[in-house]
Protein backbone atom coordinates (compact mmCIF):
# COMPACT_ATOMS: atom_id res chain seq x y z
CA UNK A 1 0.00 0.00 0.00
CA UNK A 2 1.51 3.31 -1.00
CA UNK A 3 1.33 6.64 0.84
CA UNK A 4 -1.63 7.87 -1.11
CA UNK A 5 -3.62 4.79 -0.19
CA UNK A 6 -2.74 5.14 3.49
CA UNK A 7 -3.86 8.77 3.40
CA UNK A 8 -7.15 7.91 1.72
CA UNK A 9 -7.77 5.07 4.15
CA UNK A 10 -7.11 7.42 7.09
CA UNK A 11 -9.54 10.00 5.69
CA UNK A 12 -12.19 7.32 5.15
CA UNK A 13 -11.74 5.98 8.68
CA UNK A 14 -12.00 9.49 10.15
CA UNK A 15 -15.13 10.21 8.13
CA UNK A 16 -16.76 6.97 9.22
CA UNK A 17 -15.77 7.52 12.85
CA UNK A 18 -17.33 10.99 12.90
CA UNK A 19 -20.48 10.08 11.01
CA UNK A 20 -22.83 9.69 14.03
CA UNK A 21 -21.99 13.27 15.07
CA UNK A 22 -23.78 14.78 12.09
CA UNK A 23 -25.92 12.02 10.58
CA UNK A 24 -29.65 11.80 11.25
CA UNK A 25 -31.12 8.52 12.56
CA UNK A 26 -32.11 7.37 9.09
CA UNK A 27 -28.65 7.85 7.59
CA UNK A 28 -27.16 6.17 10.63
CA UNK A 29 -29.36 3.10 10.19
CA UNK A 30 -28.47 2.91 6.48
CA UNK A 31 -24.78 3.26 7.34
CA UNK A 32 -25.03 0.54 10.00
CA UNK A 33 -26.63 -1.87 7.57
CA UNK A 34 -24.01 -0.94 4.98
CA UNK A 35 -21.22 -1.76 7.44
CA UNK A 36 -22.95 -5.04 8.28
CA UNK A 37 -22.82 -6.02 4.61
CA UNK A 38 -19.27 -4.70 4.23
CA UNK A 39 -18.19 -6.92 7.11
CA UNK A 40 -20.07 -10.00 5.96
CA UNK A 41 -18.88 -9.45 2.41
CA UNK A 42 -15.31 -9.27 3.68
CA UNK A 43 -15.83 -12.60 5.45
CA UNK A 44 -17.25 -14.20 2.29
CA UNK A 45 -14.41 -12.73 0.27
CA UNK A 46 -11.96 -14.88 2.25
CA UNK A 47 -13.65 -17.98 0.81
CA UNK A 48 -14.26 -16.84 -2.74
CA UNK A 49 -11.94 -13.91 -3.32
CA UNK A 50 -8.88 -15.37 -1.62
CA UNK A 51 -9.27 -19.16 -1.83
CA UNK A 52 -11.55 -19.33 -4.88
CA UNK A 53 -14.32 -21.43 -3.34
CA UNK A 54 -17.78 -20.21 -4.36
CA UNK A 55 -20.06 -20.40 -1.34
CA UNK A 56 -23.69 -19.46 -1.96
CA UNK A 57 -24.80 -20.44 1.50
CA UNK A 58 -23.25 -17.88 3.80
CA UNK A 59 -26.67 -17.09 5.22
CA UNK A 60 -26.18 -20.39 7.07
CA UNK A 61 -23.44 -18.89 9.25
CA UNK A 62 -25.27 -15.60 9.76
CA UNK A 63 -28.30 -17.61 10.85
CA UNK A 64 -26.49 -20.06 13.12
CA UNK A 65 -24.51 -17.23 14.69
CA UNK A 66 -27.63 -15.14 15.25
CA UNK A 67 -29.75 -17.98 16.60
CA UNK A 68 -27.01 -19.28 18.90
CA UNK A 69 -26.36 -15.95 20.57
CA UNK A 70 -30.04 -14.99 20.64
CA UNK A 71 -31.10 -18.40 21.93
CA UNK A 72 -28.56 -18.33 24.76
CA UNK A 73 -29.68 -14.82 25.69
CA UNK A 74 -33.38 -15.66 25.43
CA UNK A 75 -33.33 -18.93 27.36
CA UNK A 76 -30.40 -18.57 29.77
CA UNK A 77 -29.84 -14.82 29.97
CA UNK A 78 -26.33 -15.31 28.65
CA UNK A 79 -25.06 -12.04 27.17
CA UNK A 80 -23.71 -11.61 23.65
CA UNK A 81 -20.09 -11.48 24.75
CA UNK A 82 -20.38 -15.02 26.10
CA UNK A 83 -22.75 -16.13 23.36
CA UNK A 84 -20.49 -15.10 20.54
CA UNK A 85 -17.95 -17.76 21.49
CA UNK A 86 -20.61 -20.42 21.17
CA UNK A 87 -21.74 -18.85 17.90
CA UNK A 88 -18.22 -18.81 16.47
CA UNK A 89 -17.61 -22.35 17.62
CA UNK A 90 -20.81 -23.69 16.07
CA UNK A 91 -20.28 -21.82 12.80
CA UNK A 92 -16.66 -22.96 12.57
CA UNK A 93 -17.86 -26.49 13.18
CA UNK A 94 -20.56 -26.18 10.49
CA UNK A 95 -18.08 -24.62 8.04
CA UNK A 96 -15.44 -27.26 8.72
CA UNK A 97 -17.96 -30.08 8.35
CA UNK A 98 -19.30 -28.80 5.03
CA UNK A 99 -15.77 -28.12 3.85
CA UNK A 100 -14.49 -31.52 4.94
CA UNK A 101 -17.38 -33.31 3.22
CA UNK A 102 -17.09 -31.27 0.03
CA UNK A 103 -13.32 -31.21 -0.31
CA UNK A 104 -12.84 -34.81 0.75
CA UNK A 105 -15.13 -35.85 -2.08
CA UNK A 106 -13.51 -33.34 -4.46
CA UNK A 107 -16.62 -31.26 -4.95
CA UNK A 108 -15.83 -27.88 -6.46
CA UNK A 109 -17.21 -25.08 -8.57
CA UNK A 110 -20.92 -25.09 -9.21
CA UNK A 111 -21.40 -28.34 -7.27
CA UNK A 112 -19.78 -26.85 -4.20
CA UNK A 113 -22.00 -23.77 -4.55
CA UNK A 114 -25.10 -25.96 -4.73
CA UNK A 115 -23.95 -27.98 -1.74
CA UNK A 116 -23.63 -24.82 0.34
CA UNK A 117 -27.12 -23.70 -0.77
CA UNK A 118 -28.47 -27.13 0.13
CA UNK A 119 -27.05 -26.97 3.65
CA UNK A 120 -28.44 -23.46 4.19
CA UNK A 121 -31.89 -24.40 2.90
CA UNK A 122 -31.89 -27.63 4.90
CA UNK A 123 -31.10 -25.68 8.05
CA UNK A 124 -33.71 -23.03 7.24
CA UNK A 125 -36.47 -25.61 7.07
CA UNK A 126 -35.05 -27.31 10.15
CA UNK A 127 -35.33 -24.08 12.14
CA UNK A 128 -38.88 -23.67 10.86
CA UNK A 129 -39.69 -26.89 12.72
CA UNK A 130 -37.74 -26.09 15.89
CA UNK A 131 -40.23 -24.57 18.35
CA UNK A 132 -37.68 -23.91 21.12
CA UNK A 133 -36.25 -21.13 18.97
CA UNK A 134 -39.58 -19.78 17.81
CA UNK A 135 -40.04 -21.79 14.64
CA UNK A 136 -41.55 -19.93 11.69
CA UNK A 137 -43.19 -17.40 14.04
CA UNK A 138 -39.76 -16.02 14.87
CA UNK A 139 -37.59 -15.45 17.93
CA UNK A 140 -37.89 -12.05 19.61
CA UNK A 141 -35.43 -10.52 22.03
CA UNK A 142 -36.67 -7.98 24.55
CA UNK A 143 -35.94 -4.46 23.44
CA UNK A 144 -35.01 -2.39 26.45
CA UNK A 145 -32.87 0.55 27.42
CA UNK A 146 -32.84 1.98 23.96
CA UNK A 147 -31.29 5.23 25.22
CA UNK A 148 -29.16 3.79 28.00
CA UNK A 149 -25.77 2.42 27.00
CA UNK A 150 -25.28 -1.14 28.20
CA UNK A 151 -22.32 -2.54 26.32
CA UNK A 152 -22.27 -5.72 28.37
CA UNK A 153 -25.53 -6.97 26.89
CA UNK A 154 -25.17 -4.99 23.66
CA UNK A 155 -28.10 -2.73 24.40
CA UNK A 156 -27.95 0.94 23.60
CA UNK A 157 -28.65 3.77 21.19
CA UNK A 158 -28.25 3.31 17.42
CA UNK A 159 -24.86 5.00 17.48
CA UNK A 160 -23.50 2.18 19.64
CA UNK A 161 -24.54 -0.39 17.03
CA UNK A 162 -22.99 1.78 14.36
CA UNK A 163 -19.66 1.79 16.19
CA UNK A 164 -19.81 -1.94 16.83
CA UNK A 165 -20.37 -2.51 13.10
CA UNK A 166 -17.58 -0.07 12.28
CA UNK A 167 -15.19 -1.88 14.62
CA UNK A 168 -16.14 -5.22 13.10
CA UNK A 169 -15.55 -3.87 9.59
CA UNK A 170 -12.23 -2.30 10.53
CA UNK A 171 -11.15 -5.47 12.32
CA UNK A 172 -12.09 -7.63 9.34
CA UNK A 173 -10.23 -5.27 7.03
CA UNK A 174 -7.12 -5.50 9.17
CA UNK A 175 -7.36 -9.26 9.50
CA UNK A 176 -7.81 -9.70 5.75
CA UNK A 177 -4.94 -7.31 4.95
CA UNK A 178 -2.72 -9.38 7.21
CA UNK A 179 -4.01 -12.70 5.86
CA UNK A 180 -3.40 -11.63 2.25
CA UNK A 181 0.28 -10.98 3.00
CA UNK A 182 0.75 -14.03 5.17
CA UNK A 183 1.92 -17.43 4.02
CA UNK A 184 -1.65 -18.72 4.28
CA UNK A 185 -2.90 -15.93 2.03
CA UNK A 186 -0.39 -16.80 -0.66
CA UNK A 187 -1.32 -20.47 -0.41
CA UNK A 188 -4.98 -19.53 -0.83
CA UNK A 189 -4.28 -17.42 -3.87
CA UNK A 190 -2.22 -20.22 -5.36
CA UNK A 191 -5.15 -22.60 -4.83
CA UNK A 192 -7.54 -20.07 -6.34
CA UNK A 193 -5.43 -19.66 -9.46
CA UNK A 194 -4.61 -23.30 -10.07
CA UNK A 195 -5.44 -25.98 -7.57
CA UNK A 196 -3.43 -28.73 -9.23
CA UNK A 197 -0.35 -26.58 -9.54
CA UNK A 198 -0.69 -25.58 -5.89
CA UNK A 199 -0.87 -29.23 -4.92
CA UNK A 200 2.15 -30.02 -7.07
CA UNK A 201 4.09 -27.34 -5.20
CA UNK A 202 3.42 -29.21 -1.99
CA UNK A 203 0.59 -27.11 -0.58
CA UNK A 204 -1.84 -29.20 1.41
CA UNK A 205 -4.84 -28.03 -0.60
CA UNK A 206 -7.39 -29.80 1.56
CA UNK A 207 -6.08 -28.29 4.78
CA UNK A 208 -5.90 -24.73 3.47
CA UNK A 209 -9.35 -24.84 1.89
CA UNK A 210 -10.74 -26.00 5.23
CA UNK A 211 -8.85 -23.18 6.90
CA UNK A 212 -10.52 -20.68 4.55
CA UNK A 213 -13.89 -22.17 5.49
CA UNK A 214 -13.04 -21.87 9.20
CA UNK A 215 -11.93 -18.25 8.99
CA UNK A 216 -14.83 -17.21 6.79
CA UNK A 217 -17.56 -18.98 8.78
CA UNK A 218 -16.21 -17.77 12.13
CA UNK A 219 -16.14 -14.19 10.88
CA UNK A 220 -19.67 -14.53 9.53
CA UNK A 221 -20.81 -15.88 12.92
CA UNK A 222 -20.02 -12.50 14.48
CA UNK A 223 -22.13 -10.80 11.82
CA UNK A 224 -24.98 -13.07 12.92
CA UNK A 225 -24.54 -12.15 16.59
CA UNK A 226 -24.57 -8.48 15.65
CA UNK A 227 -27.67 -8.99 13.51
CA UNK A 228 -29.55 -10.71 16.34
CA UNK A 229 -28.92 -7.95 18.86
CA UNK A 230 -29.39 -5.11 16.40
CA UNK A 231 -32.72 -6.25 14.99
CA UNK A 232 -33.96 -8.23 18.02
CA UNK A 233 -36.08 -10.50 15.86
CA UNK A 234 -35.11 -13.55 13.86
CA UNK A 235 -37.12 -15.51 11.32
CA UNK A 236 -35.68 -18.62 9.65
CA UNK A 237 -37.46 -17.60 6.44
CA UNK A 238 -35.47 -14.37 6.33
CA UNK A 239 -32.13 -15.09 7.87
CA UNK A 240 -31.34 -18.41 6.18
CA UNK A 241 -32.88 -17.44 2.86
CA UNK A 242 -30.84 -17.81 -0.29
CA UNK A 243 -31.60 -14.19 -1.12
CA UNK A 244 -29.71 -13.26 2.05
CA UNK A 245 -26.69 -15.21 0.79
CA UNK A 246 -26.95 -13.38 -2.51
CA UNK A 247 -27.15 -10.02 -0.73
CA UNK A 248 -23.96 -10.92 1.11
CA UNK A 249 -22.01 -11.72 -2.04
CA UNK A 250 -23.28 -8.80 -4.16
CA UNK A 251 -21.05 -6.30 -2.36
CA UNK A 252 -17.69 -8.00 -2.88
CA UNK A 253 -18.52 -8.98 -6.46
CA UNK A 254 -19.61 -5.47 -7.43
CA UNK A 255 -16.77 -3.91 -5.45
CA UNK A 256 -14.08 -6.27 -6.68
CA UNK A 257 -13.54 -9.89 -5.83
CA UNK A 258 -10.42 -10.75 -3.87
CA UNK A 259 -9.55 -7.12 -3.14
CA UNK A 260 -9.45 -5.61 0.33
CA UNK A 261 -11.53 -2.56 -0.51
CA UNK A 262 -13.97 -4.38 -2.77
CA UNK A 263 -16.43 -5.54 -0.09
CA UNK A 264 -16.55 -2.10 1.55
CA UNK A 265 -16.86 -0.23 -1.74
CA UNK A 266 -19.48 -2.67 -3.00
CA UNK A 267 -21.58 -2.40 0.16
CA UNK A 268 -21.37 1.41 -0.04
CA UNK A 269 -22.38 1.49 -3.70
CA UNK A 270 -25.30 -0.86 -3.07
CA UNK A 271 -26.52 1.19 -0.10
CA UNK A 272 -26.32 4.38 -2.18
CA UNK A 273 -28.01 2.66 -5.11
CA UNK A 274 -30.84 1.28 -2.98
CA UNK A 275 -31.41 4.63 -1.35
CA UNK A 276 -31.17 6.83 -4.41
CA UNK A 277 -33.41 4.52 -6.41
CA UNK A 278 -36.04 4.79 -3.66
CA UNK A 279 -35.79 8.58 -3.89
CA UNK A 280 -35.92 8.55 -7.67
CA UNK A 281 -38.97 6.30 -7.75
CA UNK A 282 -40.88 8.40 -5.24
CA UNK A 283 -39.89 11.55 -7.14
CA UNK A 284 -41.25 10.05 -10.35
CA UNK A 285 -44.31 8.72 -8.58
CA UNK A 286 -43.76 5.12 -9.74
CA UNK A 287 -44.37 3.50 -6.40
CA UNK A 288 -45.44 0.05 -7.56
CA UNK A 289 -43.98 -2.91 -5.67
CA UNK A 290 -41.07 -4.33 -7.62
CA UNK A 291 -39.89 -1.20 -9.47
CA UNK A 292 -36.96 -0.67 -7.14
CA UNK A 293 -35.77 -4.24 -7.47
CA UNK A 294 -36.01 -4.11 -11.26
CA UNK A 295 -33.81 -1.02 -11.24
CA UNK A 296 -31.46 -2.80 -8.87
CA UNK A 297 -31.33 -5.81 -11.18
CA UNK A 298 -30.61 -3.65 -14.21
CA UNK A 299 -27.70 -1.90 -12.48
CA UNK A 300 -26.38 -5.25 -11.31
CA UNK A 301 -26.63 -6.57 -14.85
CA UNK A 302 -24.77 -3.53 -16.17
CA UNK A 303 -21.97 -3.95 -13.63
CA UNK A 304 -21.61 -7.66 -14.38
CA UNK A 305 -21.57 -7.06 -18.14
CA UNK A 306 -19.35 -3.98 -18.28
CA UNK A 307 -17.15 -4.27 -15.18
CA UNK A 308 -16.60 -8.02 -14.75
CA UNK A 309 -13.78 -7.46 -12.26
CA UNK A 310 -15.78 -5.07 -10.13
CA UNK A 311 -15.56 -1.35 -9.55
CA UNK A 312 -12.53 -1.21 -7.26
CA UNK A 313 -9.81 -2.16 -9.80
CA UNK A 314 -11.05 0.61 -12.11
CA UNK A 315 -11.32 3.12 -9.29
CA UNK A 316 -7.91 2.19 -7.92
CA UNK A 317 -6.34 2.89 -11.30
CA UNK A 318 -8.15 6.23 -11.53
CA UNK A 319 -6.97 7.21 -8.06
CA UNK A 320 -3.43 6.16 -8.86
CA UNK A 321 -3.41 3.45 -6.22
CA UNK A 322 -2.81 0.43 -8.40
CA UNK A 323 0.69 -0.92 -8.29
Amino acid at each position, binding site marked *: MNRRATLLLGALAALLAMLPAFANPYVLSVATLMLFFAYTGQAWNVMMGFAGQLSLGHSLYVGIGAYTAAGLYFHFGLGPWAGLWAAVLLCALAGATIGALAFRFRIGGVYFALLTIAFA*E*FTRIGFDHFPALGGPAGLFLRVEQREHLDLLSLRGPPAMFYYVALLLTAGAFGLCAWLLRSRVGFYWQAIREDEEAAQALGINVFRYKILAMLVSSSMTALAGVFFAFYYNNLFPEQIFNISRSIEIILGPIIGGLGTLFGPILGATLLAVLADSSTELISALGWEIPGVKQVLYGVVLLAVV*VFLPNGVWPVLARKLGLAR
Partner: protein
Amino acid sequence: MDALTVVDLVLAGVLTGLVYGLMALGLSVIFGVVRVVNFAHGEMMTIAMYVTAVLFGWLGLDPFFALLPVAVVFFGLGYALQRGLINPFITRPEHTQFMLLVAVAIILVNLLLMIFGPDAQHVQLDYLLEPVELGPLLLDRGKLAAAAVAAATAAGLFAFFRFTLTGKAIRACADNHLGALVVGLDVKRLYALTFGLGSACVAVAGCMMILLIDVTPTLGPAYTLLAFVIVIVGGLGSMPGALLGGVLIGVSEALAGLFIAPSAKSMFSFALLILVLLVRPQGLLGKSQ
Protein backbone atom coordinates in the same frame (compact mmCIF):
# COMPACT_ATOMS: atom_id res chain seq x y z
CA MET B 1 -54.00 -44.34 7.22
CA ASP B 2 -54.48 -47.29 4.89
CA ALA B 3 -52.15 -48.59 2.27
CA LEU B 4 -54.41 -47.37 -0.52
CA THR B 5 -54.01 -43.73 0.54
CA VAL B 6 -50.25 -44.18 0.45
CA VAL B 7 -50.35 -45.71 -3.02
CA ASP B 8 -52.61 -42.89 -4.18
CA LEU B 9 -50.17 -40.33 -2.82
CA VAL B 10 -47.15 -42.03 -4.32
CA LEU B 11 -48.85 -42.11 -7.71
CA ALA B 12 -49.75 -38.43 -7.39
CA GLY B 13 -46.10 -37.82 -6.49
CA VAL B 14 -44.97 -39.67 -9.61
CA LEU B 15 -47.27 -37.59 -11.81
CA THR B 16 -46.19 -34.27 -10.30
CA GLY B 17 -42.64 -35.55 -10.46
CA LEU B 18 -42.86 -36.00 -14.22
CA VAL B 19 -43.74 -32.32 -14.60
CA TYR B 20 -40.83 -31.45 -12.27
CA GLY B 21 -38.72 -33.72 -14.41
CA LEU B 22 -39.59 -31.83 -17.60
CA MET B 23 -38.72 -28.54 -15.92
CA ALA B 24 -35.41 -29.99 -14.77
CA LEU B 25 -34.81 -31.47 -18.20
CA GLY B 26 -34.70 -27.93 -19.56
CA LEU B 27 -32.05 -27.04 -17.02
CA SER B 28 -30.12 -30.25 -17.61
CA VAL B 29 -29.96 -29.65 -21.35
CA ILE B 30 -28.74 -26.07 -20.88
CA PHE B 31 -26.29 -26.94 -18.11
CA GLY B 32 -25.08 -30.09 -19.84
CA VAL B 33 -24.38 -28.44 -23.19
CA VAL B 34 -23.77 -24.73 -22.65
CA ARG B 35 -22.22 -25.32 -19.20
CA VAL B 36 -23.93 -22.21 -17.90
CA VAL B 37 -25.82 -22.29 -14.65
CA ASN B 38 -29.27 -20.98 -15.47
CA PHE B 39 -30.15 -19.39 -12.17
CA ALA B 40 -33.26 -17.86 -13.74
CA HIS B 41 -34.79 -21.23 -14.57
CA GLY B 42 -37.60 -21.20 -12.00
CA GLU B 43 -38.34 -17.59 -12.89
CA MET B 44 -38.74 -18.57 -16.54
CA MET B 45 -41.22 -21.25 -15.53
CA THR B 46 -43.11 -18.72 -13.42
CA ILE B 47 -43.43 -16.47 -16.46
CA ALA B 48 -44.77 -19.34 -18.54
CA MET B 49 -47.30 -20.01 -15.78
CA TYR B 50 -48.44 -16.38 -15.83
CA VAL B 51 -48.67 -16.31 -19.61
CA THR B 52 -50.83 -19.44 -19.54
CA ALA B 53 -53.01 -18.01 -16.77
CA VAL B 54 -53.48 -14.75 -18.68
CA LEU B 55 -54.27 -16.51 -21.96
CA PHE B 56 -56.82 -18.60 -20.12
CA GLY B 57 -58.31 -15.73 -18.13
CA TRP B 58 -58.57 -13.18 -20.95
CA LEU B 59 -59.01 -15.27 -24.05
CA GLY B 60 -60.32 -18.45 -22.50
CA LEU B 61 -57.52 -20.34 -24.22
CA ASP B 62 -57.18 -23.87 -22.86
CA PRO B 63 -53.66 -24.47 -21.45
CA PHE B 64 -53.39 -27.62 -23.56
CA PHE B 65 -53.78 -25.49 -26.69
CA ALA B 66 -51.61 -22.70 -25.29
CA LEU B 67 -48.73 -25.18 -24.94
CA LEU B 68 -47.41 -24.94 -28.46
CA PRO B 69 -47.46 -21.16 -28.99
CA VAL B 70 -46.02 -20.54 -25.52
CA ALA B 71 -43.25 -23.07 -26.14
CA VAL B 72 -42.41 -21.48 -29.50
CA VAL B 73 -42.24 -17.99 -28.00
CA PHE B 74 -40.06 -19.23 -25.15
CA PHE B 75 -37.79 -20.99 -27.62
CA GLY B 76 -37.28 -17.64 -29.34
CA LEU B 77 -36.70 -15.82 -26.07
CA GLY B 78 -34.20 -18.42 -24.88
CA TYR B 79 -32.40 -18.28 -28.20
CA ALA B 80 -32.17 -14.48 -28.01
CA LEU B 81 -31.08 -14.54 -24.35
CA GLN B 82 -28.22 -16.89 -25.11
CA ARG B 83 -27.19 -15.07 -28.28
CA GLY B 84 -27.44 -11.57 -26.89
CA LEU B 85 -26.54 -11.78 -23.23
CA ILE B 86 -25.07 -15.06 -22.09
CA ASN B 87 -22.78 -16.00 -24.96
CA PRO B 88 -19.95 -13.58 -24.04
CA PHE B 89 -20.00 -15.07 -20.54
CA ILE B 90 -19.34 -18.65 -21.57
CA THR B 91 -15.61 -18.37 -21.08
CA ARG B 92 -15.85 -16.24 -17.96
CA PRO B 93 -15.60 -17.61 -14.40
CA GLU B 94 -18.61 -19.35 -12.92
CA HIS B 95 -19.37 -16.68 -10.36
CA THR B 96 -19.82 -14.00 -13.03
CA GLN B 97 -22.21 -16.26 -14.95
CA PHE B 98 -24.03 -16.81 -11.72
CA MET B 99 -24.30 -13.08 -11.04
CA LEU B 100 -25.50 -12.42 -14.59
CA LEU B 101 -28.36 -14.88 -14.28
CA VAL B 102 -29.17 -13.78 -10.76
CA ALA B 103 -29.54 -10.24 -12.13
CA VAL B 104 -31.82 -11.57 -14.90
CA ALA B 105 -33.82 -13.50 -12.29
CA ILE B 106 -34.22 -10.43 -10.04
CA ILE B 107 -35.47 -8.41 -13.01
CA LEU B 108 -37.91 -11.11 -14.10
CA VAL B 109 -39.40 -11.72 -10.65
CA ASN B 110 -39.96 -8.06 -10.02
CA LEU B 111 -41.35 -7.34 -13.48
CA LEU B 112 -43.94 -10.00 -12.71
CA LEU B 113 -44.58 -8.37 -9.35
CA MET B 114 -45.04 -4.99 -11.05
CA ILE B 115 -47.41 -6.34 -13.67
CA PHE B 116 -49.48 -8.86 -11.72
CA GLY B 117 -49.10 -7.81 -8.10
CA PRO B 118 -48.38 -10.22 -5.26
CA ASP B 119 -51.68 -12.15 -5.37
CA ALA B 120 -51.81 -15.78 -6.45
CA GLN B 121 -53.45 -16.74 -9.74
CA HIS B 122 -54.72 -20.09 -10.83
CA VAL B 123 -56.31 -21.91 -13.73
CA GLN B 124 -59.10 -24.38 -13.18
CA LEU B 125 -60.49 -26.50 -15.98
CA ASP B 126 -63.93 -27.94 -15.29
CA TYR B 127 -63.36 -31.11 -17.26
CA LEU B 128 -60.34 -31.97 -15.07
CA LEU B 129 -62.27 -31.88 -11.81
CA GLU B 130 -63.58 -35.43 -11.99
CA PRO B 131 -60.88 -37.87 -10.84
CA VAL B 132 -59.94 -40.91 -12.89
CA GLU B 133 -60.83 -44.23 -11.26
CA LEU B 134 -58.24 -46.91 -11.77
CA GLY B 135 -59.57 -49.96 -9.99
CA PRO B 136 -59.58 -48.96 -6.31
CA LEU B 137 -57.31 -45.96 -6.95
CA LEU B 138 -58.34 -42.38 -7.59
CA LEU B 139 -56.09 -40.28 -9.79
CA ASP B 140 -56.29 -36.53 -10.26
CA ARG B 141 -57.24 -35.99 -13.90
CA GLY B 142 -55.26 -32.74 -14.15
CA LYS B 143 -52.11 -34.35 -12.82
CA LEU B 144 -52.53 -37.28 -15.17
CA ALA B 145 -52.92 -35.01 -18.20
CA ALA B 146 -50.01 -32.79 -17.12
CA ALA B 147 -47.77 -35.82 -16.61
CA ALA B 148 -48.74 -37.21 -20.01
CA VAL B 149 -47.85 -33.94 -21.70
CA ALA B 150 -44.56 -33.80 -19.79
CA ALA B 151 -43.68 -37.37 -20.77
CA ALA B 152 -44.57 -36.74 -24.42
CA THR B 153 -42.48 -33.55 -24.54
CA ALA B 154 -39.54 -35.35 -22.96
CA ALA B 155 -39.90 -38.20 -25.44
CA GLY B 156 -39.91 -35.68 -28.31
CA LEU B 157 -36.72 -34.13 -26.96
CA PHE B 158 -35.05 -37.55 -26.60
CA ALA B 159 -35.94 -38.33 -30.19
CA PHE B 160 -34.61 -34.96 -31.36
CA PHE B 161 -31.25 -35.51 -29.67
CA ARG B 162 -30.98 -39.11 -30.81
CA PHE B 163 -32.19 -39.05 -34.38
CA THR B 164 -31.77 -35.59 -35.92
CA LEU B 165 -28.48 -34.25 -37.23
CA THR B 166 -28.86 -31.00 -35.27
CA GLY B 167 -29.50 -32.98 -32.10
CA LYS B 168 -26.39 -35.05 -32.69
CA ALA B 169 -24.39 -31.88 -33.35
CA ILE B 170 -25.55 -30.44 -30.03
CA ARG B 171 -24.51 -33.63 -28.25
CA ALA B 172 -21.15 -33.37 -29.96
CA CYS B 173 -20.74 -29.83 -28.55
CA ALA B 174 -21.53 -31.12 -25.09
CA ASP B 175 -19.07 -34.02 -25.36
CA ASN B 176 -16.16 -32.08 -26.75
CA HIS B 177 -16.35 -28.36 -27.24
CA LEU B 178 -12.99 -28.03 -28.95
CA GLY B 179 -13.64 -31.04 -31.16
CA ALA B 180 -16.97 -29.56 -32.22
CA LEU B 181 -15.21 -26.35 -33.21
CA VAL B 182 -12.53 -28.27 -35.09
CA VAL B 183 -15.01 -30.16 -37.25
CA GLY B 184 -16.65 -26.87 -38.14
CA LEU B 185 -19.87 -26.87 -36.14
CA ASP B 186 -21.43 -23.47 -35.54
CA VAL B 187 -21.15 -23.82 -31.78
CA LYS B 188 -22.61 -20.38 -31.00
CA ARG B 189 -25.77 -21.16 -32.96
CA LEU B 190 -26.04 -24.62 -31.43
CA TYR B 191 -25.65 -23.17 -27.94
CA ALA B 192 -28.41 -20.66 -28.65
CA LEU B 193 -30.55 -23.47 -30.04
CA THR B 194 -29.94 -25.51 -26.89
CA PHE B 195 -30.86 -22.60 -24.66
CA GLY B 196 -34.00 -22.17 -26.75
CA LEU B 197 -34.90 -25.84 -26.38
CA GLY B 198 -34.31 -25.72 -22.64
CA SER B 199 -36.54 -22.66 -22.42
CA ALA B 200 -39.25 -24.38 -24.47
CA CYS B 201 -39.13 -27.35 -22.05
CA VAL B 202 -39.52 -25.11 -19.06
CA ALA B 203 -42.36 -23.28 -20.83
CA VAL B 204 -44.28 -26.51 -21.38
CA ALA B 205 -43.59 -27.46 -17.76
CA GLY B 206 -44.97 -24.05 -16.74
CA CYS B 207 -48.13 -24.49 -18.83
CA MET B 208 -48.78 -27.77 -17.01
CA MET B 209 -47.65 -26.59 -13.58
CA ILE B 210 -50.36 -23.91 -13.52
CA LEU B 211 -52.88 -26.76 -13.51
CA LEU B 212 -51.28 -28.16 -10.35
CA ILE B 213 -50.38 -25.14 -8.22
CA ASP B 214 -51.21 -21.44 -7.91
CA VAL B 215 -48.66 -19.00 -9.25
CA THR B 216 -47.17 -16.00 -7.43
CA PRO B 217 -44.29 -13.80 -8.67
CA THR B 218 -41.94 -15.09 -5.97
CA LEU B 219 -42.36 -18.74 -6.86
CA GLY B 220 -39.25 -18.68 -9.05
CA PRO B 221 -36.25 -19.11 -6.74
CA ALA B 222 -37.70 -22.18 -5.01
CA TYR B 223 -38.24 -23.87 -8.37
CA THR B 224 -34.80 -22.90 -9.61
CA LEU B 225 -33.38 -24.69 -6.60
CA LEU B 226 -35.74 -27.62 -7.08
CA ALA B 227 -34.62 -27.97 -10.70
CA PHE B 228 -31.01 -28.02 -9.58
CA VAL B 229 -31.68 -30.62 -6.94
CA ILE B 230 -33.40 -32.83 -9.52
CA VAL B 231 -30.65 -32.45 -12.11
CA ILE B 232 -27.86 -33.24 -9.65
CA VAL B 233 -29.75 -36.17 -8.13
CA GLY B 234 -30.59 -37.63 -11.53
CA GLY B 235 -27.19 -37.02 -13.02
CA LEU B 236 -25.93 -34.05 -14.95
CA GLY B 237 -26.19 -34.45 -18.69
CA SER B 238 -28.36 -37.53 -18.40
CA MET B 239 -31.81 -36.87 -19.84
CA PRO B 240 -33.50 -39.95 -18.32
CA GLY B 241 -31.75 -38.93 -15.10
CA ALA B 242 -33.63 -35.64 -15.00
CA LEU B 243 -36.96 -37.43 -15.32
CA LEU B 244 -35.98 -40.04 -12.73
CA GLY B 245 -34.79 -37.28 -10.39
CA GLY B 246 -38.08 -35.43 -10.89
CA VAL B 247 -40.12 -38.50 -10.05
CA LEU B 248 -37.98 -39.26 -6.99
CA ILE B 249 -38.37 -35.72 -5.69
CA GLY B 250 -42.10 -35.74 -6.45
CA VAL B 251 -42.58 -38.97 -4.49
CA SER B 252 -40.35 -37.88 -1.62
CA GLU B 253 -42.30 -34.62 -1.33
CA ALA B 254 -45.60 -36.50 -1.28
CA LEU B 255 -44.40 -38.93 1.38
CA ALA B 256 -42.77 -36.23 3.51
CA GLY B 257 -46.03 -34.28 3.35
CA LEU B 258 -47.91 -37.34 4.53
CA PHE B 259 -45.62 -38.63 7.26
CA ILE B 260 -43.98 -35.50 8.63
CA ALA B 261 -45.32 -32.08 7.64
CA PRO B 262 -46.08 -30.56 4.25
CA SER B 263 -43.85 -27.61 5.12
CA ALA B 264 -40.90 -29.96 5.67
CA LYS B 265 -41.13 -31.53 2.23
CA SER B 266 -38.28 -29.68 0.57
CA MET B 267 -36.03 -30.56 3.50
CA PHE B 268 -36.02 -34.08 2.12
CA SER B 269 -35.15 -32.89 -1.35
CA PHE B 270 -32.14 -31.03 0.03
CA ALA B 271 -31.14 -33.97 2.20
CA LEU B 272 -31.29 -36.14 -0.90
CA LEU B 273 -29.15 -33.62 -2.78
CA ILE B 274 -26.52 -33.56 -0.04
CA LEU B 275 -26.48 -37.34 0.09
CA VAL B 276 -26.14 -37.74 -3.68
CA LEU B 277 -23.42 -35.09 -3.91
CA LEU B 278 -21.39 -36.86 -1.27
CA VAL B 279 -21.97 -40.47 -2.19
CA ARG B 280 -22.46 -40.36 -5.92
CA PRO B 281 -21.55 -36.88 -7.18
CA GLN B 282 -22.21 -37.80 -10.81
CA GLY B 283 -25.85 -38.44 -9.92
CA LEU B 284 -27.91 -41.60 -10.10
CA LEU B 285 -27.77 -42.03 -13.88
CA GLY B 286 -24.76 -39.84 -14.65
CA LYS B 287 -21.57 -41.12 -16.17
CA SER B 288 -18.55 -40.94 -13.88
CA GLN B 289 -15.84 -38.70 -15.22
